[in-house]
């Protein structure tokens, strides 16, 4: 209850994962809910992100899978009548929603008290002018900027401040819509975009090249303050902090600078009146102690999640308690359990955060990094030298790199240009530059990266050179081996450096054997918040080579079970695997084993050290996993909860006789290896789309001659751009292959027949020794051709023939039996009429496991874990046919952050997150989920260009519905003609390439359109055609856009049938026959 006698509190979540707002808010929300539960407070959570841990059973008392918007929040408040609300645990989304609720008087009307930082303090930090004013009052310097509300004022402000300037959008997250402008032309362009997101835009003097430093500050209502952590950006000001490598604690600040900024942070938080946690960002002059405050985030943020993980200080948990009126002195340090929570962690290691980008997935995207965030995930690495931490981290980001050196050589045309115009590969450009003889001085001048970091990187290069001089492993001096390991070199890097050309994996094993012979082994260290000053029983661990003894004593009782996590969030693998990992850990504990997690993603709940019995915050590389297994000597290892990264280790771990729980490594290999899997399907008589791996253009033409267009083409080596594509004719095929790479023996191309107008069906299931114990069948709304991670999925399926379902079950049974699956798996099917084909099969949990588990209210991951542990389970009696409600999973796209990327959907996944909403019927669930991923029910005007003839026909009923509902339809040439022919009134508009008025583009810019439906004619994307210009403009101007005919029809159908008011406000438990 806390000191304020809170009985029922509402927490707002952050919704779908998007660039700038990702898994960190599942972590902070989960911690806050845990803190409230401990106090016996009844909790209500609004969060449509169904894949999160916080929306799992037992975390909050009432969970609403509804959009985090003022409208729905009010409805929930009206129904649940909480006495209090927390706004700071759901990122910018929750904060904005909370400010709106306050402004509209909703909170007052229902007597809801805001806990923690008050709304006025939030407004003071978010409104730039107020913010600057508040800091002026206490003599704290801010960056000179001017808040403007129109383009002319922006121009004047920029002239006054002097170029270069930064444009920032008020009330936005992750630097959305912001950027640098060197001149008025660039300013005009950016401002238009910026004003589409917010009525207020800030024009700010640019301090490019200054150091960027952050402090995480905590304050209680008794005015006691601490700074939990400070962090220094490797990349100086000019690159958004979410795009920067970040080091904790700061490395290049003297004591005086460190404490000057610390004192300012405390002065600021006191003056603004934060209660809970807050983040202060500074620019620090590299040549004096001059500074500017960049911004203050009056809420938990990505940085605070990182700071929590970097220090072991549970910021969100403590912030929640402070919101209830506790003082910091009331709370204990949850790591030592004996010392006070009022303290500042002392680190005895260095932490490195590295962003993970997936820009390669987007056609045409701008790769230069700037003041707006584009990364989709991050890793945190821990070491006792900077070299160790950074090399670990560069392996962790999982883009095929082995560290700072010994990577596949990148082709960098102009090193100088690449150094001064940072992209997602900047760190590897620095590596190349150092190796090609650029001095630290020269690189510093081009990048403004502090020389200290560059000296450290130079150390890695120097050691690499020494390794390259060794030609035989046996000649390697022990001291060099030790030094290399202390600098974070992997066995693989060492093997490559000394020239094991043939088989590097075998070479790495030889390096491993030799260093073990010499006793060169890592030690296991605790993160104990106090640098060993007080004894701590924490289970939060990492491995390092800078140590002589481990902190942990191992029992060797063979009773632990190790779960491999999912690593950095990336497109295709994110919070859903964190959920799977956490379910596995919970089950392992419940069954009496010791649960052990290996993962390195600071945005996750699975890396919260009290979620398991031991957390190794370390690499998921073969080498490190083996190191840990040798320490742990566990009962077994679970690979199937963490997505693809653990599965890829299966065969190699098996080769070292690791006890893999569940499906065998050989079966995993048989499903993952295309040839083996295909042969197996043929053997058991299961159909699949024809495919072939081809090594010459002639073979490709021959194959297409047999199966016909369209085909799905997957090159094995891609220079840039998407990894696969659908080609409908020879022209597309040739241009795609030229873009991708040359076809050769070494780089075969997999070509498969692409089946049009087929439904795609997901089969998520759990089996035991080949027998299916539970399953969920779900159906995509879009036809095949849209990646399953981007598709809108309905569960239970609403429009599948019974025969189709029967056949799918039959085939799945065959496959499960043949691979003797034990544990979770997923099969994807194509269904046209009742013709069923298997596309792929994953012997692990899939992205949709949390979604189907929560809709079905049957925890498939728990069941799977019990089976893998060898515990006797009964077949659950519940099936999808019992459900009297519908779940819809919709995808969240972040195109607005990815400048120039074409916002179309294809066979490669591009969404960054998802939601899952429940409704009494399909339309209610669909409308809720679409509203959750940022769509609105459009006001009045719809712009239609509906693709080819078939798609036009498909869209016709939806167009009629729109007309009947009173919408004004604007349509481009062909679409307009088609609609008119079919008796649907519409206004003809013109493409950018056409003469005539009105111009579609002008209408967008004048905000005369409330929604754009733009269906590309074919699935080959990329060229700067008319459609691209319209689609991109819609995204840049923040106008809802749909590019798929099936989804557009479904959405239009939903909002033409239901109004927001018709959507039922029911908690998760109220669906089905649970008792709430």
């Amino acid at each position, binding site marked *: 209850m806390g000191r304020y006698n809170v009985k029922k509190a509402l927490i707002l979540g952050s919704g779908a994962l998007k660039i700038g707002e990702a898994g960190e808010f599942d972590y902070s929300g989960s911690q806050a809910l845990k803190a409230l539960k401990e106090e016996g407070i009844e909790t209500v959570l609004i969060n449509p992100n169904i894949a999160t841990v916080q929306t799992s059973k037992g975390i909050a008392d009432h969970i609403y899978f509804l959009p985090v918007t003022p409208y729905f929040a009010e409805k929930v408040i009206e129904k649940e009548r909480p006495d209090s609300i927390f706004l700071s645990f759901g990122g910018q989304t929750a904060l904005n929603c909370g400010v709106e609720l306050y402004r509209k008087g909703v909170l007052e009307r229902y007597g809801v008290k805001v806990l923690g930082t008050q709304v006025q303090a939030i407004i003071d930090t978010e409104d730039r002018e107020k913010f600057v004013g508040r800091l002026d009052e206490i003599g704290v310097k801010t960056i000179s900027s001017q808040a403007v509300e129109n383009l002319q004022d922006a121009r004047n402000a920029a002239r006054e401040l002097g170029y270069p300037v930064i444009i920032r959008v008020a009330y936005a997250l992750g630097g959305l819509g912001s950027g640098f402008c060197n001149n008025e032309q660039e300013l005009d362009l950016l401002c238009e975009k910026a004003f589409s997101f917010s009525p207020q835009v800030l024009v700010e003097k640019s301090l490019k090249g200054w150091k960027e430093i952050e402090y995480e500050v905590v304050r209680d209502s008794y005015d006691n303050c601490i700074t939990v952590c400070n962090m220094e950006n490797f990349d100086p000001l000019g690159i958004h902090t979410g795009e920067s490598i970040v080091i904790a604690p700061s490395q290049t600040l003297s004591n005086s600078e460190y404490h000057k900024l610390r004192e300012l942070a405390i002065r600021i938080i006191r003056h603004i009146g934060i209660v809970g946690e807050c983040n202060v960002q500074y620019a620090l002059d590299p040549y004096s102690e001059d500074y500017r405050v960049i911004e203050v985030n009056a809420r938990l943020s990505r940085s605070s999640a990182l700071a929590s993980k970097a220090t072991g200080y549970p910021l969100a948990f403590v912030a929640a308690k402070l919101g209830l009126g506790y003082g910091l002195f009331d709370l204990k340090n949850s790591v030592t359990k004996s*010392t006070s929570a009022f303290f500042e962690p002392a680190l005895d290691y260095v932490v490195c955060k590295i962003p993970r980008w997936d820009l390669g997935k987007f056609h045409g995207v701008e790769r230069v990094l700037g003041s707006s965030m584009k990364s989709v995930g991050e890793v945190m690495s821990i070491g006792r030298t900077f070299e160790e931490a950074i090399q670990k981290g560069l392996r962790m980001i999982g883009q095929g790199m082995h560290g700072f050196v010994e990577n596949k050589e990148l082709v960098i045309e102009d090193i100088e240009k690449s150094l001064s115009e940072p992209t997602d590969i900047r760190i590897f450009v620095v590596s190349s530059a150092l190796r090609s003889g650029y001095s630290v001085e020269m690189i510093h001048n081009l990048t403004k990266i502090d020389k200290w970091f560059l000296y450290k990187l130079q150390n890695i290069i120097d050691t690499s050179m020494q390794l390259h001089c060794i030609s035989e492993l046996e000649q390697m001096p022990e001291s060099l081996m030790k030094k290399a390991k202390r600098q974070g070199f992997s066995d693989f890097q060492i093997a490559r450096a000394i020239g094991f050309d043939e088989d590097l994996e075998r070479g790495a094993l030889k390096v491993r054997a030799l260093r073990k012979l010499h006793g060169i082994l890592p030690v296991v260290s605790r993160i104990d918040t106090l640098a060993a000053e007080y004894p701590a029983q924490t289970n939060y661990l990492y491995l390092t080579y*800078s140590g002589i003894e481990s902190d942990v004593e191992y029992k060797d009782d063979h009773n632990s079970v190790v779960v491999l996590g999912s690593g950095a969030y990336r497109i295709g693998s994110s919070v859903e695997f964190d959920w799977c990992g956490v379910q596995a850990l919970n089950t392992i504990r419940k069954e009496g084993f010791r649960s052990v997690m290996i993962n390195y993603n600071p945005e996750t709940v699975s890396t919260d050290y009290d979620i398991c019995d031991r957390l190794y915050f370390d690499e998921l590389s073969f080498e490190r996993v083996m190191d840990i297994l040798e320490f742990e000597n566990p009962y077994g290892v679970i690979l199937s909860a963490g997505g693809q990264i653990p599965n890829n280790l299966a065969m190699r771990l098996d080769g070292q006789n690791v006890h893999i729980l569940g499906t065998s490594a050989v079966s995993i290999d048989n499903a993952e290896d295309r040839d083996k899997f295909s042969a197996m399907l043929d053997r058991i008589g299961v159909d699949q789309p024809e495919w072939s791996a081809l090594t010459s253009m002639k073979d490709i033409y021959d194959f297409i001659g047999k199966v016909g267009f369209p085909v799905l083409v997957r090159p094995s080596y891609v220079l840039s751009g998407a990894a696969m594509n659908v080609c409908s004719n020879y022209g597309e095929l040739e241009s795609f292959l030229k873009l991708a790479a040359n076809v050769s023996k070494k780089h075969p191309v997999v070509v498969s027949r692409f089946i049009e107008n087929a439904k795609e069906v997901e089969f998520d299931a759990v089996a035991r020794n080949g027998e299916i114990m539970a399953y969920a069948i779900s159906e995509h709304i879009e036809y095949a051709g849209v990646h399953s991670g981007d598709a809108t999925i309905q569960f239970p399926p609403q429009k599948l023939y019974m025969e189709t379902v029967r056949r799918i079950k039959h085939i799945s049974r065959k496959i499960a039996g043949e691979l003797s699956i034990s544990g979770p798996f997923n099969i994807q099917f194509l269904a046209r009429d009742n013709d069923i084909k298997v596309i792929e099969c994953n012997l692990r949990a899939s992205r949709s496991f949390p979604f189907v588990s929560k809709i079905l209210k049957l925890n498939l991951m728990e069941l799977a874990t019990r089976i893998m542990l060898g515990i006797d389970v009964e077949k659950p009696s519940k099936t999808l046919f019992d459900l009297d409600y519908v779940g819809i999973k919709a995808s969240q796209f972040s195109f607005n952050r990815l400048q120039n990327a074409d916002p179309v959907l294809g066979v490669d996944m591009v969404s960054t997150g998802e939601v899952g909403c429940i409704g009494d019927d399909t339309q209610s669930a669909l409308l809720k989920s679409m509203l959750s991923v940022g769509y609105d029910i459009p006001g009045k005007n719809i712009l239609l260009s509906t693709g080819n003839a078939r798609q036009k026909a498909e869209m016709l009923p939806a167009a009629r519905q729109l007309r009947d509902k009173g919408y004004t339809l604007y349509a481009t040439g062909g679409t307009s003609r088609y609609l008119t022919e079919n008796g649907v009134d519409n206004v003809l508009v013109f493409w950018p390439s056409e003469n005539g008025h009105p111009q579609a583009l002008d209408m967008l810019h004048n905000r005369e359109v409330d929604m754009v439906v733009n269906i590309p004619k074919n699935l080959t994307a990329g060229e700067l055609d008319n459609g691209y210009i319209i689609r991109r403009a819609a995204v840049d101007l923040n106008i809802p856009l749909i590019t798929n005919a099936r989804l557009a029809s479904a959405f239009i159908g939903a909002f033409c049938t239901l109004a927001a008011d018709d959507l039922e406000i029911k908690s998760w438990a109220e669906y089905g026959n649970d008792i709430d």
Partner: protein
Amino acid sequence: MNEATLILEDGSRFYGYSFGAEHCTNGEVVFNTAMTGYTESLTDPSYAGQMIVLTYPLAGNYGVPGSSFWESGRIYAKALIVSDYSESYSHWNAEESLGDWLKRENVPAITGIDTRALAKRLRERGVMCGKIEIEGTDNTQLSVEYGSVNYVAEVSCKEVIHYNAGGLKKVLLVDCGVKQNIIRCLLKRGVEVIRVPWNYDFNNMEYDGLLLSNGPGNPDNCPRTVEHIRCAMRGDKPIFGICMGNQLLAKAGGASVYKLKYGHRSHNQPVRHLGSDRCFITSQNHGYAVDDNTLGQDWEPLFVNMNDGSNEGIRHKGKPWFSVQFHPEAAAGPTDTEFLFDEFLKML
């Protein structure tokens, strides 16, 4: 770099490489968990006779600035022990590398030590003396008994020094090994400072307030200072003690001090102001503490350590006399309690 070995009193050995002066040395081995501030710590006279172990592994990153940034005119610590010394440094005010400075000041240093393991050893077995041996040098050294050496006498000024003569008020500073930042904190508040040696009888001098400074070693080695304080306590002039000053004031008031198992040396020590909800993060460096149970009737604890409950300050119930175990002048460390100087000066 030459190989160097740290040998603790209990016989345990830690192997690393020398990056400072190349000679054998010994002293009390103490660990500090601060993440910045090696320049300030090394020049802090309170570290006289001690070898400093930094638990934060990276050291030397920002080099060493000129002496105006130091806490005294030279390095007082006997040695520096780190995990990962950074030979290359980068900072606008750096004049030389940490290693070059240590060499110039003739102070040995070791890198490559598992300072976490070392800190754990000291935590479990208590602080102890140790010896650094460097490959290829004469490694014979007499052993020392840290507690019995009067380090205060070694580090205190030898004669009276006046600062800012004619300032608004006169603060008499008893120098038991005063850190420069205490003087800076006074001077920037416009007062005159008269700095006297630790054993100087100041009772005939004219002053408005008495400040008892920090200092190294065992406060039991300074009976004369305690006598002088007792003499001053016959009057009513304000007294403010810092660190060793806290212990000396307590002793003058009749209390006793004891040696902590491994001391408080860090920037993150939480203290609570007794009788209120106010808490502060403080910078500390002490191996001895005041025993609360021995405080006389007229005295009461002023601050308490929130981690281990030890005494962090005392005050007289009736007279304007108070002292703190932590360092309100910081340098290195957090500046949260600098307001105590204002409180002291308000009393004058």
